[in-house]
């Protein structure tokens, strides 16, 4: 297993290198001179040039890349020219929030998604199936910022049940979690439904029934573990997406997460923070993928012995 | 055996087993491991063996659907494996294949006419109404009617689909037809229809068949000669009658005895083989069959027996025979 993980890590190096090069070039492709933006409207030409020099933007691209890689090799992501804080600190300040939000919404999505998916699959085309499908689809059919706004107006302003935005108590988590969970919930529940439906048609389910096992055992023991394998992929993919992709939700609920940091930084042309954050998220993505594969192996013996 | 159409010698196909980032090869599946045989014009050669013995791979390699690892295959004296792309296109007109699964071998999105027309189109045979006429003829030849032309494969039964596949293969007027388990997916009553069709076609067009199957009864019925394969090698070849009356290889003997006969009174002496076909990744040294052989000799574990002619064109790869005849 250790060898396997090591190999997977090795395989991820080209991907990470690709991500580094891509993000490095892409942020520089975006029009808008960071020096001009950071210097502000009232800056003089000399001040702009000074900032440009500070950011090494006056040097040719390969040199800039070399400097970046040199620092990276030392584990240094650099400092934000905008806030003067080390990039690692900027990421660190948001990481906890992002992870918490990712986990709560994924947990919610998985628990409800799997439950409704299984019930729907056991009784396909039933009233419950249709309703669950409709409700979950309505959730994903709303632009997330609109949904979030409605949540705030209803639950915070009208009912006064929950705080509108920001962090603090666990109550602050509720609305962003629900809002963020809608998309993965719909995906997971639909995925679970189709997987369980498919598994229920497998020969080994017939075998389990032929053995005289009670239906709940057939579903819980024989169907679910098999159905979980593809579901885990979806959950894993969502993990990556939610970690850095919750931009809109984070904006609406003033949730200080990585997505907002990334977007704010790109809009401010804060190259080091963008580079650092994207690289960090890519690393997480790679790790999550490895984690999923390890889980696969745990769940599916066929993979284990190949 | 004078008029040899296809001669295969030392054919090998290894599938590498890869792992790691750069796909380092750590072993091979020796699907076909030194197969030699020859087919005469107008003859039907049966290749039999159990699943995983390499009989289908052999066909696909000769057809150049997959590239060989080693060996030579001469079609009318020309080496198939040395052909360039242009020659290969010509080759496609001389050799064709009919597949086992009548459901998977026809593109579900095409009409019957399209399917049969595709080879004609690819090779620029006929055009317009002439091509349509040709397709109509082909369909009639295989026992389908004009009315079927515009329909899709899913509207047909298994037997009919197999007829479509045969029409497709015949469209380029090949000399040699590989029949890869062409009837094993069909119901008994349909099987006989298709087998009869093959016989009719052979008579009519002077076709040469390589008939790959695991059903020995069908093979016996249709083939002139039979090659028995075991784990990537031919272990015995003989004329059909000879093989069924005087099987020499212990594997052939067991295979023949295992066939259930639809006669409750047939006194059958069954040779039960122990165990299964071993994994082709790590084969034992020596004879491949030694792990299941009743007559295993010390030499069997030491050296791999060569396929040798023991008379009447009956070839055998077994130490036992040599020992007993010596």
């Amino acid at each position, binding site marked *: 297993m250790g060898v396997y993980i090591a190999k997977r890590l090795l395989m991820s190096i080209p991907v990470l290198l690709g991500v580094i090069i891509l993000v490095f070039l892409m942020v520089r492709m975006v029009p808008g*001179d960071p020096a001009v933006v950071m210097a*502000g409207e009232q800056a003089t030409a000399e001040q702009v040039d000074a900032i440009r020099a500070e950011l090494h933007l006056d040097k040719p691209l390969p040199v800039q890349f070399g400097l970046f890689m040199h620092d990276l090799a030392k584990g240094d992501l650099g400092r934000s020219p905008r806030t003067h804080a080390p990039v690692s600190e900027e990421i660190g300040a948001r990481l906890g929030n992002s992870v918490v939000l990712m986990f709560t919404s994924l947990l919610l999505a998985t628990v409800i998604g799997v439950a409704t998916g299984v019930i729907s699959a056991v009784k396909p085309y039933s009233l419950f199936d249709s309703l669950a499908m409709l409700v979950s689809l309505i959730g994903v059919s709303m632009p997330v910022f609109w949904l979030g706004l409605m949540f705030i107006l209803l639950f915070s302003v*009208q009912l006064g049940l929950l705080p509108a935005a920001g962090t603090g108590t666990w109550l602050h988590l509720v609305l962003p979690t629900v809002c963020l969970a809608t998309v993965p919930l719909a995906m997971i529940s639909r995925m679970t439904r189709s997987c369980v439906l498919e598994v229920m048609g497998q020969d080994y389910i017939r075998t389990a029934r032929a053995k005289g096992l009670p239906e709940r055992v057939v579903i819980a023991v024989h169907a679910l573990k098999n159905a979980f394998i593809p579901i885990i992929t979806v959950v894993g993919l969502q993990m990556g997406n939610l970690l850095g992709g919750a931009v809109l939700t984070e904006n609406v609920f003033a949730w200080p997460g990585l997505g907002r*940091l990334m977007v704010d930084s790109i809009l401010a042309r804060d190259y080091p923070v963008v580079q650092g954050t994207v690289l960090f998220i890519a690393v997480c993505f790679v790790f999550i993928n490895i984690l999923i594969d390890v889980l696969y192996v745990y769940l599916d013996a066929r993979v284990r012995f190949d | 055996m004078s008029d040899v159409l296809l001669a295969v010698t030392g054919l090998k196909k290894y599938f590498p087993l890869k792992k790691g980032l750069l796909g380092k090869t750590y072993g091979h599946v020796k699907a076909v491991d030194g197969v030699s045989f020859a087919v005469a014009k107008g003859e039907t050669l049966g290749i039999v063996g159990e699943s995983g013995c390499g009989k289908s791979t052999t066909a696909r390699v000769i057809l150049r659907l997959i590239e060989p690892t080693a060996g030579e295959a001469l079609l009318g004296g020309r080496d198939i494996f040395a052909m360039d792309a242009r020659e290969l296109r010509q080759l496609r007109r001389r050799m064709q294949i009919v597949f086992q699964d009548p459901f998977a071998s026809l593109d579900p999105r095409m009409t019957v006419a399209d399917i049969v027309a595709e080879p004609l189109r690819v090779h620029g045979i006929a055009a317009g109404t002439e091509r349509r006429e040709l397709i109509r003829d082909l369909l009639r030849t295989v026992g389908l009617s004009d009315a079927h032309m515009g329909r899709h494969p899913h509207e047909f039964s298994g037997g009919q689909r197999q007829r479509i596949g045969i029409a497709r293969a015949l469209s380029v007027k090949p000399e040699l037809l590989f029949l890869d388990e062409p009837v094993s997916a069909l119901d008994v009553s349909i099987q006989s229809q298709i087998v009869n069709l093959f016989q009719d076609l052979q008579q009519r067009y002077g076709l040469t068949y390589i008939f790959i199957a695991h059903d020995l009864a069908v093979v016996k019925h249709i083939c002139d000669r039979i090659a028995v394969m075991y784990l990537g090698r031919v272990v015995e070849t003989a004329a059909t009658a000879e093989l069924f009356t005087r099987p020499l290889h212990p594997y052939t003997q067991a295979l023949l005895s295992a066939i259930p006969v639809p006669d409750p009174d047939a006194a059958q002496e069954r040779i039960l083989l122990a165990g299964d076909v071993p994994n082709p990744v790590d084969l034992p040294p020596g004879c491949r069959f030694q792990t299941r052989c009743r007559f295993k000799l010390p030499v069997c574990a030491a050296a791999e027996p060569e396929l040798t002619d023991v008379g009447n064109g009956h070839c055998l790869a077994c130490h036992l025979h040599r020992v007993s005849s010596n």
Partner: protein
Amino acid sequence: MKKWIALLVVAVMFAALASGCGGGSSQKPAAVKDSIVVAQGTDIEDLDPHGIASTPSAIVTEHIFDTLVTLDKDFKIVPRLAESWQSSPDGKEWTFKLRKGVKFTDGTVFNAQVVKFNIERLLDPKVKVLLRGYIDQVAKVEVVDEYTVKMILKYPHAPFLARLSSASNAMLSPAAVAKYGADIGRNPVGTGPYKVKEWVRGDKLVLERNEEYWGAKPAIKTVVFKPVPDNNTRLAMLEAGDADIIVRVPPVEYDRLSKNANVKVVRSNSTREIYMVMNVNNQYLKDPRVRQALNYAVNKEEIVNGILKGAGKAVDSPLLQEMFPYKKVGAYEFNPTKAKQLLAEAGYPNGFKLTIHHPVGRYLEDKRLVEAIQGYLKNVGIDAELKTMEWAAYLTFVRKPADQAETQLFLMGWGPWILDGDQMLYPLFVSGEFPPGGNNYGFYKNDEVDALLKKGTSTTVEKDRADAYGKAQELIMKDAPWIFLHSEMQIVAMKKNLDGVVVLPIEQLRLAGAKWAQ
């Protein structure tokens, strides 16, 4: 299964009912509070006052640091760390008597050495000072005695004192600068009424009362600043009781919020002026008649009332009323007929095509503003295409030198932190201030205006300055290098029972005097 569905239906109905009957906002009982939560639009970047250039950061640093002088609630310059001052007759030497007994929160004593250190740091080219323009007229700082400091200017500079009130010219503890080095921005040490208690980047900045503060101690113990990017969310936070003060309230909310019994809305003038810059090098816009025509074509009053919902004031001079020395020169009235006539005179009876560049989310209702202007221009035959750009690209785009400039007509705003006319007219209209270094983005050049504005800066006699600026304002208005639009009003909303919050026209909040009413 059925039971499950029934339960769901009941739950949904209940929720709907509750929301229908809920009505008013749910105020938490106003126990004796000693904290304030402020929701701002963007995050604080850095707390090194010398490095800042953004309003949200300045609002915070103004509570941690003190400047030598400051603005009171009537926008007059009053003493802060400097108790009194005197300038030499030629206006080149300024002597300040400093307040005694002031200590930084790290224990460092505030004195003339500290002032000298700070001014020199502000002038040090190695230190990143974005608003160096607010101080770079200083040539030298001399310590006269422990509590007296003298600043010698390169040239007489009338707005000098006003510039010292800028948040960027605040006094920082020299010991802290030595201690924290590059990290000073995250470890600010000042003499102000508050000090940093906790700073979670992107989430909140918590200030707590500086118990050693030299002045009147604030009544509120803790002030929390939260970055809340979405306008609606900030509003909801106030309504739900999660925030006590919110800034940048959408103008459309003013009327409704004003009726809310729990909320107090402050709508006041700001010094941010909004205008459409015209690139005078453009083939059409180089003709003053065309520029005037554009000014006549746009209905400024309608914009102010219809789009800004009253949260603005149409301008009648290049300079704003709050700034010295404003002179009312009269705006272009809304007169499409005249606009058409002028266009015809200029040779464009059938109008022409134009591109309007604009940012989104930068100025009050900016997108709608340009949509409206597009509509007005269409009425006089000018077919304008809108091009949105995000701010960073936009700023780079408009700051290109004349030979690279692709600008035609574009939306800008200017909001100086100092209420002196120099801060507005000089950088925006003097021909020496062309991009990339300056802010005269339209490349406007009028020799007479240049001379007048230079005079206004260097003269210290108030009357002379007023005359020079007054004349300049008239000339500029006539030349119409902009479509003069309006000045923004800032809308700040807070809890009804929060008193003593000062809203300055420079988009600043002062909370030191705030307190909760019983």
